[in-house]
C-alpha cells in the first residue's frame, strides 16, 4: 500500500489476539496531518487495545501500522519520540505536585523548563503547580495529564477516552483545549470515546469500531447520511451499526470503572 506523505497514521489489517480471543480484528484506516480522528465504540470494542498497539506498548498479532512514517513493530523509539499519549485511566502519581510531575517528564524528554510554565498556563493550571495531584479534581488531573502528553511538542497526540467520567462542563472545556491545539498548532489527534456527542463535536472523521472491527468510517455528516431517517442523529447511526444490546464485558484495565450507560 502506498504511504501518502500526508498520512500521520497509516494502519493496514492490524490485529490483536489474546490467547485466541480477537480483540482487534484487521482494522485499516489512515489519519492525515492536522486531523482529529476518533474511534467510537462501546466498552470492550478494542479501542484501548488499538491505541496500545499504535503507541508501541503492545505487539500486534497481524498487519502493520506506521505512525509519523515509522513502523510500530521496528521503529518504536522514533515513534515514542514523536507521539504524546494520555491513557484511559489516570497515570499521574498522586503524591507528586503538578510541577514535579511535569518536571519529571520534561527531564525524560529533554525539554526546557520554560515549557512547564507555558503548558501549565495553556491548561489553566498555573495556580495549581505547587499542589499535590491528590488535591486535584478528576478533570484537573486529566488536564495535567494532557499537558504532560504535550510537553515535548509531539506531532500526534493519542487520547484514550479523554473525558471518561467527567461532568459536562469539564468535558466541554477539554474539548476546547483539544480543538484549539488542533487549530492553532496543527496538532494531529487520535482519540477514542464511547460518547457520541464527543465524536460528533470534536472529530473530523470517525471510525465506528465494534467487536474489534471497523464497521463504518467517515465524517460525522457522512455517517449520518447513511441512516435513512428524517433527522438522523449520530446516536441512530451508532445503534444502527453496533446493535442495541447492552455491553457489560469488562475492559482490560484492571481499575476500570463500572460499565457506563452510554445508551442514554
Amino acid at each position, binding site marked *: 500500500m502506498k504511504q501518502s506523505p500526508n498520512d500521520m497514521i497509516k494502519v493496514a489489517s492490524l490485529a490483536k489476539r489474546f490467547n485466541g480471543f480477537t480483540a482487534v480484528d484487521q482494522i485499516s484506516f489512515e489519519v492525515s496531518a492536522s486531523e482529529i480522528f476518533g474511534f467510537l465504540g462501546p466498552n470492550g470494542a478494542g479501542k484501548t487495545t488499538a491505541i496500545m498497539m499504535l503507541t508501541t*506498548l503492545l*505487539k500486534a498479532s497481524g498487519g502493520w501500522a506506521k505512525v509519523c512514517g515509522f513502523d510500530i513493530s521496528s521503529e*518504536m*523509539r522514533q515513534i515514542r519520540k514523536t507521539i504524546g*499519549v494520555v491513557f484511559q485511566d489516570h497515570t499521574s502519581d498522586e503524591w507528586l505536585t503538578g510541577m514535579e510531575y511535569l518536571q519529571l*517528564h520534561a527531564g*525524560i*524528554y529533554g525539554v526546557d523548563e520554560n515549557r512547564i510554565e507555558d503548558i501549565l498556563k495553556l491548561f489553566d493550571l498555573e495556580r495549581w503547580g505547587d499542589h499535590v495531584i491528590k488535591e486535584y479534581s478528576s478533570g484537573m488531573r486529566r488536564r495535567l495529564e494532557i499537558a504532560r502528553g504535550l510537553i515535548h511538542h509531539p506531532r500526534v497526540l493519542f487520547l484514550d477516552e479523554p473525558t471518561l467520567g467527567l461532568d459536562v462542563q469539564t468535558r466541554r472545556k477539554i474539548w476546547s483545549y483539544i480543538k484549539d491545539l488542533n487549530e492553532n498548532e496543527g496538532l494531529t489527534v487520535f482519540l477514542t470515546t464511547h460518547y457520541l456527542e464527543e465524536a460528533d463535536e470534536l472529530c473530523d472523521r470517525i471510525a465506528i469500531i465494534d467487536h474489534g472491527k471497523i464497521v463504518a468510517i467517515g465524517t460525522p455528516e457522512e455517517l449520518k447520511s447513511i441512516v435513512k431517517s428524517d433527522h438522523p442523529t449520530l446516536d441512530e447511526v451508532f445503534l444502527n451499526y453496533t446493535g442495541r444490546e447492552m455491553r457489560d464485558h469488562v475492559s482490560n484495565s*484492571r481499575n476500570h470503572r463500572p460499565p457506563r450507560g452510554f445508551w442514554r
Partner: protein
Amino acid sequence: MPLIWFCAFGLGLGSAFGIRYGEIGYAEFLAPGIIAMTVLFASTFSGMSIIVDKEFGILKELLVAPISRTSLVFGKVFGGMATSLIRAILITILFSMTLKISMSIPEYLGILAIICLISFGFGALAIAIATLMESMEGFGLIVELVVMPIFFLSGAFFPIERLPEWLSMVVALNPLTYGVDGLRLIMFGTGSFSMLHDFGMLMFFDAVMVILAAYLFGRGDTT
C-alpha cells in the same frame, strides 16, 4: 516478620537443643540468614510489583517515552535495593546490639555491599519472573515455589558441610548461599567459602539476572 523467625528458631531451637556451630551459638549462626531473608523478600516483592506498575501509573508513561527498557529494569532494581537496604540495616543494627557483635566501618560497608548484591540479583530475577506473569495473583505461588526454597536451601538454617551430596549440590547452586556465607564471614569470621568466592558468585548471579530481566522485559508482549 524476620524477627519472629529469629526468636522462634534462633533463640528457641538454639537453646532447646543446645546447638552450636564451631565458635558461635545457633542464634549467631542464624542472624546472617535472617538479614539475607529480609533482603530476599523485600527485593523479590519490589521486583514483582512491576506487574502492577505496568497496569497503573507512571510506568506506562515511562514505557511510552523514549527510554530504554534496560534502564527501566535498572530503575526498578535500584528502587528495590533502597527498600532492602533500609530494612536490612535496621535488622543488622538490632543484631549487632543484641548479639554484641562489634564490627569496624569497613566490615559494615562489606555487609552493605552484600545486601546490595543480594537485592540486585533477586530483584532482577523477580522482574524476569514478572514479565512472564499476567497479574499479581501468582505471587503467592512464586513465593512458595521459588522464594521459600531459595531461603531454606541457602545455609541460612543449617551448616552446609554435613549435607547429603544431592542437597549440597542444590545449595551450592543457590546464589543466596553465598550471600548468607559472606554475611556470616563478616559478622563472625566463620563461613564455608572464601570472601572472594562469595562475592564472585553473587556478582556473577547479578550479571546473569540483570541481562535476563532486561531481555525478557524488552521482549515481552508489552514491548
